[in-house]
């Protein structure tokens, strides 16, 4: 499970409890803590630039409205990711048949110095392009494991599967990416 204790402040559980008592500041802190990771995950999973903000916003809205549904044995982040993943899946189903934007079309802000990270970025983009060719579960397991650093237990919670299945999806994803990414 991801660390949720507070080197940087109160734990997620404490913030959730505060939100349940009506603290809007606690909700704001949870958004600050998890929004970037959720955004990266959804973009990596194929969410387009026009939809990712809506998906992230809706994920938090649903999470706060349905906070009683969070089982404390999984991390708040993995639960949030499960909401985001399901919303993205629903969006994809509704838009099936629509032209899918390639990652080069992603119009996301870049706040880093491109010169020093160009090579790494290019490789990451090739991997992201390879990810689009994987089945959804393989793609999302890879992202949650590699990009987000979740352990298999949290990945299983986030994607509604088992630890064993998450491991299998991960190794299938690696095997396929070895073929797909030059």
């Amino acid at each position, binding site marked *: 499970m991801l660390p949720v204790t507070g080197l940087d402040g109160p734990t997620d559980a404490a913030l959730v409890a505060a939100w349940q008592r009506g603290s*809007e500041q606690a*909700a*704001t802190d949870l*958004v*600050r803590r998890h*929004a*970037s990771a959720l*955004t*990266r*995950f959804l*973009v*990596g999973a194929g969410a387009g630039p026009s939809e*990712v*903000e809506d998906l*992230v*916003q809706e994920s*938090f*809205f649903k999470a*706060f*409205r349905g906070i009683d549904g969070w089982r404390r044995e999984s991390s708040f982040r993995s639960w949030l990711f499960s909401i985001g993943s399901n919303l993205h899946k629903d969006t994809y189903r509704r838009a099936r048949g629509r032209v899918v934007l390639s990652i080069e079309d*992603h119009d*996301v*802000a*870049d*706040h*880093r110095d491109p010169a020093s990270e160009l090579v*790494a*970025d290019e*490789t*990451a983009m090739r*991997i*992201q392009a390879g*990810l689009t060719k994987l089945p959804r579960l393989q793609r999302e397991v*890879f*992202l949650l*494991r*590699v*990009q987000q*650093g979740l352990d298999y237990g949290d990945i299983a919670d986030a994607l509604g599967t088992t630890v064993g299945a998450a491991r299998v999806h991960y190794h299938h994803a*690696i095997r396929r*990416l*070895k073929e797909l*990414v030059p």
Partner: protein
Amino acid sequence: MTCHEQSERMPAVARGNAAWTLAEAEHLSRCADCRAEWALVMPGAAVAGNATLDVEALAAKVLHRLRTEPVAPRRRPFRWVVGLAAAASVVLVLSRGSPPASLPPGPAVPPLGVDLPGLDGLGTSELQTVLESVDAPWTETSTADAPSLNDLTDQELARVARGWEN
């Protein structure tokens, strides 16, 4: 050091939360399979690394919605199916009439074979199957002559209840 152990450590090292041990570095240098995986995992940690949102604006929008949008009543999907199945099972029981008095008390009423509380976990096709299984006795049996629960004796009611529990 095995390839599996090496693989398990890769995400943490790629994200900068750990460093290779000497044994791991050595394994990586002589194992082509692990090197190929590492070549994916290391840059994979940076996938979509440039994707950002204005988090403060996002938080404000979420809070605004939480303040202004009414809370939707909690829906219980397929609850009506459970109710229908329960009603159908009652009709099924009653339409078969009371067993002869000589029969020993017990599970005289066969259950539908459906775990009713478990219906929430069924898929659409499985629910359809359940519906079809409860449709048959409902439509094939006239309920006009069937006694209602109010007409049953305590003993008969107890038998019906046992049938449901089995």
